[in-house]
């Protein structure tokens, strides 16, 4: 145990002093702060632009009216809807880039409801949004009903649903309040999952590099004559895990500071509300997940004859860790579907899948228990096999062990 601690301490301290580590740790919050600063300066404009780009709001819609139902436009729409005399005029304006698109309302509109919308092929996407059904529906409804029905009813027909989503906990109490809390249910699981990925990549990068160096400068021979491969592996994983966690904590701290800055600058309201059990379980999965991947990475790293080859082998495992992200949408939409359950039982995908699901849904305790047991069994298995392959790989200079050699190493007591 003392030796594991000694290795962990050594790995932590020497890698803490690496320039690449210091730069990466400082650079990320700096970039964040810079982005925030730029956002603060141009905040309003950027927001407007994005809204315009993705919702089509604020864009001017041109139209030609053959039915007479929309001439002249109601005062409420006078700013955003421009009436053209005929199609030729509208087309000329479109080609001259004065407008992005125009609609043609035919004579028999009331019977058919058919509308043609024209835009230039070069700007088809944004124009298609500005003349999408959702965006122009209100304009049509308002004009059709103006003066025909009670204004209150007309307002409801135009905008029938004002939806506020409320999630209830087991006791039937609302758990979320305000739009920020709703966002947090999507942001938090992704954030946790991404943090796990970052920790895995930075720490395992150092692990690979360290093992490669020890192989290259032959210190490995002295190390292996002093302690077991399991101790060495465990010490490295602990030390570099602590290092990765330190980096994540620095980033989180900076992120919190930036977030409060953002709240002040953009006047965002609401708080991120996460339950304690989610945080604790999230942390458990975070640690177990790191343990699992770091062990695999280290063994893979030791098997490569050079640091580069080690990195290539470990790339396979980086890829595996990203699999739940591919099903990310699916897991978020249906966090209790069979696929999500399978992914949370399979040790390689469990940590990240569970982190996503945890924040979205109440997972039955039995499922959590099964997933944790399988994950721990998986870690023990990988530690056992990894330790052996690690040992085999470490003593091979200049060549990679064959599959047969790996198999023999695994069978050896």
């Amino acid at each position, binding site marked *: 145990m003392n030796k594991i601690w*000694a290795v962990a301490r050594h790995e932590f301290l020497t890698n803490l002093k690496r320039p690449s580590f210091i730069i990466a740790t400082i650079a990320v919050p700096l970039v964040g702060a810079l982005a925030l600063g730029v956002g603060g300066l141009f905040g309003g404009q950027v927001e407007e632009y994005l809204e315009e780009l993705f919702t089509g709001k604020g864009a001017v819609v041109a139209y030609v009216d053959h039915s007479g139902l929309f001439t002249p436009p109601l005062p409420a729409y006078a700013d955003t809807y421009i009436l053209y005399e005929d199609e030729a005029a509208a087309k000329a304006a479109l080609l001259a880039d004065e407008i992005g698109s125009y609609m043609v309302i035919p004579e028999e509109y009331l019977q058919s409801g058919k509308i043609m919308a024209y835009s230039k092929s070069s700007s088809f996407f944004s124009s298609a949004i500005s003349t999408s059904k959702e965006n122009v529906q209100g304009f049509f409804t308002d004009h059709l009903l103006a003066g025909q029905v009670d204004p209150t009813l007309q307002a409801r027909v135009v905008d029938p649903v004002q939806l506020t989503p409320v999630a209830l906990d087991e006791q039937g109490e609302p758990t979320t309040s305000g739009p920020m809390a709703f966002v947090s249910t999507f942001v938090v699981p992704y954030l946790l999952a991404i943090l796990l990925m970052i920790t895995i990549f930075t720490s395992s990068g150092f692990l690979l590099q360290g093992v490669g160096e020890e192989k*290259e*400068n032959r*210190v490995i021979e002295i190390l292996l*004559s*002093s*302690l077991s491969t399991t101790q060495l592996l465990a010490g490295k994983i602990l030390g570099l895990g602590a290092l990765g966690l330190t980096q994540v904590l620095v980033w989180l701290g900076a992120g919190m500071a930036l977030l409060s800055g953002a709240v002040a600058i953009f006047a965002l309201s609401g708080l991120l509300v996460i339950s304690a059990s989610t945080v604790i379980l999230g942390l458990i999965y975070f640690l177990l997940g790191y343990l699992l991947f770091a062990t695999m990475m280290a063994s893979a790293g030791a098997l490569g004859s050079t640091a580069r080859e080690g990195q290539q082998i470990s790339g396979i495992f980086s890829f595996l860790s990203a699999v739940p992200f591919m099903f990310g949408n699916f897991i978020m939409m249906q966090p209790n579907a069979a696929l999500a359950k399978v992914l949370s039982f399979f040790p390689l995908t469990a940590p990240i899948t569970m982190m996503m699901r945890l924040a979205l849904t109440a997972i039955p305790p039995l499922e959590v228990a099964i997933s944790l047991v399988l994950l721990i069994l998986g870690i023990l298995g990988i530690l056992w096999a990894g330790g052996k392959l690690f040992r085999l790989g470490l*003593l091979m200079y200049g060549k990679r062990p064959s599959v047969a050699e790996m198999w023999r190493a695994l069978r050896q007591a």
Partner: protein
Amino acid sequence: MNVLAIETHDLTKQFNGLTAVDHLDLAVRQGEIFGFLGPNGAGKTTTIRMLMDIIRPDSGRIHIFGQPLAPQTLDRIGYLPEERGLYRKIKTVDCLAYLAVLKGMPRRIARERALALLERVDLADSADKKVETMSRGMQQKAQFVATLVHDPELLILDEPFHGLDPLNTELLKEMVLELHEQGKTIIFSTHQMNQVEALCDRILLIDHGRAVLYGPLQEIKERYAPHAVQFRGEAIPADLPGAQRLEQQEEGIVAYLADGVTPPAFLRQLVESGAAITHYEVVTPPLEDIFIEVVERERQR
């Protein structure tokens, strides 16, 4: 003190069907300097790695200080591998202290001892510098120190003087002898036969993983002695019946004795014949000659 420092029995290790170590029996007594010799690829490094629990034998057993190989016993051994290397990017003293801590020594004591030993090998100035700033010879000395910091009872030194200048070789040899006086057991693996002759009590010569020569150095040399004496003096008669053949060499005359004639009897004969002998010794072949002879004979078999 009768416990053997190292004892192996029937030690065997194969790599891909090739036998690297073949039923090796070996006993190293406590407090001796033991020469572990063999041509390249004879199985020396494999044997040492098995002793250090870096690789596991296929069969056979290893006892160190009378105990089966265990992590605690490894802490009592200092190992200088033939493939040298230290952490390059950290301070020399930190590197040495870390390696000693891994052998179970408390950190503070490890640092103190590392500093003292660095001073002993004239590297005090490099203690706070990065390992990579030292020259090759200096790193070599630092590496030697690294095997001593945790105060081991048994030292396994693989080619300790390789690549060192005569001055530094002498310094390290002196330290080895000091350690010997302190009662440490030293296993000394090398190709440099003159070093073996100067330092070792007993030797083991292996080839193809098998022991081909094993025992006290003096005994071995006598066993391979050509039954000859070398002498210098005045008024030496031309005809000496006890000798089959005489050879004039730079250091004197070498006489190959006839069967049944012992060196003392031949000396008596010389003196009685009126020769004034100033120097007389039994010829023992250099270990290098024995090494070559034994290995070649084994290979012809």
